[in-house]
């Protein structure tokens, strides 16, 4: 199938799925037991006048479909509504926090890709003691949940040794301060995925190392470093790319835990706080953004797969 047509079709599918997701996200609040107004107030007591004001502000007396249509229309114009807790526009809340979260997730992603691929490569190619050490290390990394890693890193490197700040994002003090503040959270976020990616890379490369075409490449006098990069690693990339979806979804979910543990003040922490205070407009907005991000990543993976493995044609995920 032609690349442009495939991309357009997938974008349309994505829009449809997002529409469905928005319906679920909005409906969840409407269907939740009890009066939406008291829900919006989150158990706080309020005067009848205040309740009436909320009803008016959120159009709670309109039919559901009308409410949903209005909410969706506003979102399409970039208006995610107002936060009950912070009494400010949701888009304003997000615009100050989204860069922090994206930087954190981006840092973690760089660590995962660089370290995961390098460790997997080293284990497969060097073998012996290097490989054993990497296997032990990745076993620990995979076995340590992100919040445990966060607590340990905070306890030792931040509180005990004072090498890194123990909380905050450093936003407002420039990019260097932010990188400095986000180093430990990024490591906590990356740890499990580094172990996972290293394992996937290692076993995919080991499989290639015993394959006939690699023996043939050697028999043709291809220098060993080229055999590894052009045939072993290159052919392991397909397996690596199929884990990309898992990596990104894991990063998006775990950033909630890690941002909370380090009080980073990003979108993840905001989601955690807003869930406990039942600040629905915020939860709805963040949920939608996460779904959209996840779908975008999957679209990119589907477009990249045929590039990495020419045996796969666009739109048909295959193995082999």
């Amino acid at each position: 199938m032609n690349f442009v047509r495939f991309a357009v079709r997938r974008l349309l599918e994505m829009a449809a799925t997002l529409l469905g997701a928005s319906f679920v996200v909005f409906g969840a609040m409407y269907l939740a037991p009890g009066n939406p107004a008291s829900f919006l107030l989150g158990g706080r007591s309020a005067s009848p006048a205040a309740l009436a004001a909320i009803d008016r502000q959120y159009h709670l007396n309109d039919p559901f479909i009308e409410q949903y249509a209005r909410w969706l229309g506003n979102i399409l114009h970039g208006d995610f509504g107002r936060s009950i807790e912070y009494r400010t526009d949701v888009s304003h809340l997000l615009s100050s926090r989204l860069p922090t979260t994206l930087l954190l997730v981006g840092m973690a992603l760089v660590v995962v890709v660089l370290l995961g691929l390098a460790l997997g490569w080293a284990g497969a190619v060097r073998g012996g003691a290097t490989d054993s050490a990497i296997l032990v290390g990745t076993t620990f990394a995979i076995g340590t949940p992100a919040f445990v890693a966060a607590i340990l890193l905070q306890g030792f490197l931040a509180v005990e040794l004072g090498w890194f700040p123990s909380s905050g994002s450093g936003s407002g003090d420039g990019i260097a301060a932010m990188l400095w503040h986000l180093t430990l959270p990024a490591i906590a976020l990356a740890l499990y995925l580094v172990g996972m990616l290293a394992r996937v890379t290692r076993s995919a490369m080991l499989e290639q190392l015993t394959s006939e075409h690699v023996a043939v490449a050697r028999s043709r006098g291809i220098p060993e470093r080229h055999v590894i990069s052009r045939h072993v690693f290159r052919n392991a990339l397909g397996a690596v790319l199929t884990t990309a979806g898992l990596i990104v979804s894991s990063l998006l979910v775990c950033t909630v835990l890690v941002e909370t543990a380090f009080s980073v003040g990003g979108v993840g922490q905001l989601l955690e706080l807003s869930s406990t205070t039942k600040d629905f407009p915020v939860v709805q907005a963040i949920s939608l953004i996460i779904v959209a991000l996840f779908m975008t990543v999957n679209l990119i993976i589907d477009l990249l797969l045929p590039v990495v493995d020419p045996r796969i044609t666009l739109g048909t995920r295959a193995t082999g």
Partner: protein
Amino acid sequence: MNTTEQHPADTPRPAPGGRPNTPAALDIRNLRMRLPHTARPVLDGVDLTVGAGETVALVGESGSGKTLTSRTVLRLLPAGTTTEGTVHVAGDDVLTMNARQLRHLRTRTAAMIFQDPRAAINPLRRIGDFLTESVRLNKIMTPAAAQARAGELLEAVGLTTEVPRRYPGQLSGGMLQRVMIAAALMGDPTLLLADEPTTALDVTTQAEVVALLGDLRARFGTGLLFVTHDLGLAAAISDRVYVMYAGRIAETGPAASVFARPRHPYTKALLDSTPGLDAPPGRLVAIDGQPPDLRREPTGCPFAPRCAHATELCTTETPRSMPARGEPAHTAACHHSDRLEGTPGDA
């Protein structure tokens, strides 16, 4: 381990069928190879030569050591093997080469055509990349020159010039084997090694590929060691033939002479089990029994347990290669060769 005992002259002798005054394309002398955890050598005193521009067939049952012999020529050995003897390719000893010399051997002097081209070519890289990567990465040719040569060779093997842009999955097995042959010729080698290059192909394609190999080795003047267990194919393509049994050369000589007047009972049995070659059609006899395995050291002739002509002598004394009367190039390692003399086709 690598010793050159028994052969005082370390310079390769010219091969029997080769051109005079050029070193043999391949000269294996007294090659003995041991695999780890085995009782007897898997190759036991193999002597084999391929003259410049000569085509030589190496035949034998499965497990006799044909693949190990041909892979040794490129020093592709299983881990933990030890070797004795010498393997000269175009005058240079392969077993003592350093890494750089070995790379030179593999890119410029000798090249192998493998059994299953679909497994041998990286499915994720384009054909053009496969053809040119060795000469490019070793800086033997510029990318442009490599591309031009690949184009010429593709034409020589009967493929079109749009093939380089394709991926292996888009070509048939026969086309891929042609690509493999073109790739082997890229470095203009002195010696081609083909290890059962047609086994993975269908019958019509097999014939085409064999004919092509024959043409090309004549046109490019390369020596060819053709490994097969198909005696019909060996007879059709080769100048000389080696028959291997349990890691030893049982019999060797000009193809016509070996197939018409076998002097080793094993060769005779192989011929009898081959349809349409000397044996009357419809008579297909598999050779009874199993070749000796690597866990026991046999005494005497390794073929004795399966041999109809075996005597007391055969089980106690290992036969040495002896030339036929009046035909010194035709030798067999059998105590009782004379009993087979002039009796082709009946056992």
